[in-house]
């Protein structure tokens, strides 16, 4: 029983990592209808900036706010410079641009900060929570921050004019433009928000997995899986999907005899395929219909 609980909680802790990444992926997907392969590298780059600021002696929370702001602006800048010229281009052109961005950011990390792993501080401490060894303070903190982030996004999209405008721009760009919404800038805003969410998840993940240029590579795969499971169009679904992938993966690894550990990602992906056969848009996703 202790093992079961421990593995569920370890799964949730991993799941929180995936959920943060899934959330950022969904944000850009909502804005541009493509998966951003460079999402993980953007988050890693933000985390390296945070690490550098901390190394220079900047206090944690100031760094945190600063990096989120820098990432927001950076995300907008990437959209304006790199992807705005491509917004009518073929999907393959976009794909190549994503991969280029991935490669550029990854190499830049290594060039500037080298490839050795670095420790990253946690604001929550790493003491076991409530004296139990089941979950530590940082893991609990991650769960809370992910929940808060999701709440804020919900309020933003359902309760503010800007949020509504963004949804309109993504849902029906032509009509949105006709009612006076600047669709191009809404897309850029989506990039900015996604980069900022990525920065938060990067700073939360780094204390657990250590910071290095390839920190997000595996996480991105699981994040994709989580986002697809929950639904690419649903931020809440993506978060739940991320948690689900984390738990399923851990359970399979621990309790499926012989092949469990070796095939745990396969098992997680099988579950996803099974779900998608029943609900192609993901559990919480909305089905998009496009006129041909």
């Amino acid at each position, binding site marked *: 029983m*202790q*093992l079961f609980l*421990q*593995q569920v909680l*370890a*799964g949730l*802790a*991993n799941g929180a*990592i*995936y959920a943060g990444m899934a959330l950022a992926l969904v944000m850009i997907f909502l804005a541009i209808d493509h998966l951003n392969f460079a999402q993980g590298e953007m988050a890693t780059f933000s985390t390296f900036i945070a690490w550098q600021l901390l190394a220079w002696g900047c206090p944690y929370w100031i760094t945190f706010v600063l990096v989120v702001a820098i990432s927001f602006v950076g995300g907008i800048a990437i959209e304006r410079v790199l992807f705005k010229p491509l917004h009518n281009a073929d999907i393959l052109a976009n794909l190549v641009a994503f991969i280029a961005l991935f490669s550029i950011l*990854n*190499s830049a990390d*290594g060039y500037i900060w*080298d*490839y*050795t*792993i*670095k*420790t990253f501080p946690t604001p929550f401490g*790493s003491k*076991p929570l409530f004296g139990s*060894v089941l979950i*530590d303070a940082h893991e609990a903190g991650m769960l809370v921050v992910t929940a808060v982030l999701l709440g804020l996004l919900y309020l933003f999209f359902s309760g503010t004019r800007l949020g509504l405008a963004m949804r309109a721009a993504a849902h029906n760009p032509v009509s949105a433009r006709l009612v006076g919404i600047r669709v191009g800038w809404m897309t850029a805003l989506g990039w900015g928000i996604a980069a900022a969410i990525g920065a938060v998840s990067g700073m939360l*993940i780094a204390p*657990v*997995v*250590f910071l*290095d*240029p*390839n920190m997000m*590579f*595996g*996480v991105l*795969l*699981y994040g994709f899986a989580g986002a697809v499971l929950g639904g690419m169009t649903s931020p809440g679904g993506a978060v739940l999907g991320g948690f689900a992938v984390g738990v399923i993966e*851990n359970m399979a*690894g*621990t309790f499926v005899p012989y092949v469990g*550990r*070796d095939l745990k*990602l396969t098992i997680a992906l099988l579950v996803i395929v099974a779900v998608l056969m029943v609900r192609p848009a993901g559990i919480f996703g909305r089905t998009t219909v496009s006129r041909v």
Partner: protein
Amino acid sequence: MKHLTRRTVLAAAPAALAFGGPLLAPLPARAKQYGPGVTDHEIKVGNTGPYSGPASSYGTVNKAEAAYYKMINAQGGVNGRKINFVSYDDAYTPPKTVEMTRKLVEEDHVLFVAGSLGTPTNTAIWRYMNEHKVPQLFVGTGATKWDDPKHHPWTIGWQPNYQSEGRIYAAYVLKNKPDAVIGVLYQDDDFGKDYLKGVLDGLGPKHASMVKVKATYETTDATVDSQVVQMKSAGCNVIINTAIEKFAAQAIRKAAQIEWKPLHVLSGIGNSVAGTLKPAGLENSKGIVSDFFVKDPTDPEWHNDAGYKWWVGFMDKWYPEGDKTDGANVYGPSVAATVIQVLKQCGSTLTRENVIRQAASLHHFTVPMLLPGITINTTPTDFAPIKQVQMARFDGERWQLFGPLLNGAVG
């Protein structure tokens, strides 16, 4: 270049004597035999390394090798021949290694390739080198498969291989923890399985059941926390941790966090103080044991050691931009020094056949940064140059070597 064989030279000698040696004076004192890439003034040596890409932190190995050859050239080269070290970036991508190695062999016409880095990369050119009979010397990887002179007579390893290390850990555990319940953490690929095989072989069929948990990880995993939790729950009191630095550090930290205190054996892959133990927490790392074959440049124990002083001098003069706390910069010049020894033994018979023959006849050769007593030995049936290691225990600040030199020779 006319290719003389040993036999024609030997056959010609009595004839020369019969006709009165002095009349045929232009015959050189020792017949020269040159393979591709060799002249009276130069030997071309090929190499590939990860100067860019995900493994580029290891690229410094190849840079340090280049620095060593530069030093040799400044000292006059080997028998008057300068080393022309042609090194290309393969970005740690096997297809690129093939492309670059073919360029080295077919366009640059190097005599041989030495010190190329990486297991997947060297695997990609393994067959090519053996089919074309070009020596692939002292590959920068610890896979056991390089020690296979029967099937791959043109490829030779250098460092202690993973199976040797695995055997040494097994022997250590059997001796120090007879009631061991072992968990092995290893990467789910050839590299990890090499370690596991060494451990299981070392335990022998009688004790193989001591290994209760065989936990793998993928390099794409976020953490290995779950594996560590599983080992603790299964009642393991020994962990053999053969993970790469990042995951090795996670395992050490997680063990401390869940208050699990097994005998922790850490493999040579992940035993860097700066790379693993510091991120994991020095306090958490206390008591861990591991194995070494070169001197740790950060260890003050060596600061008055002649070999260490030589190395610092070498780094200052020939590779000043290199990091003196990075073990990779100890590795590079040590490999290059072994290559130079092979070339010295070749004399003026610089053919590919003789290069591999000499690489397979190193006897009690040593380089400054190997641990005292460890020597490099090869024979035509033994292509594993370094077989000895010494155990060390981490005291919270640095590794303390203990016990005798251990030999984990496989086969």
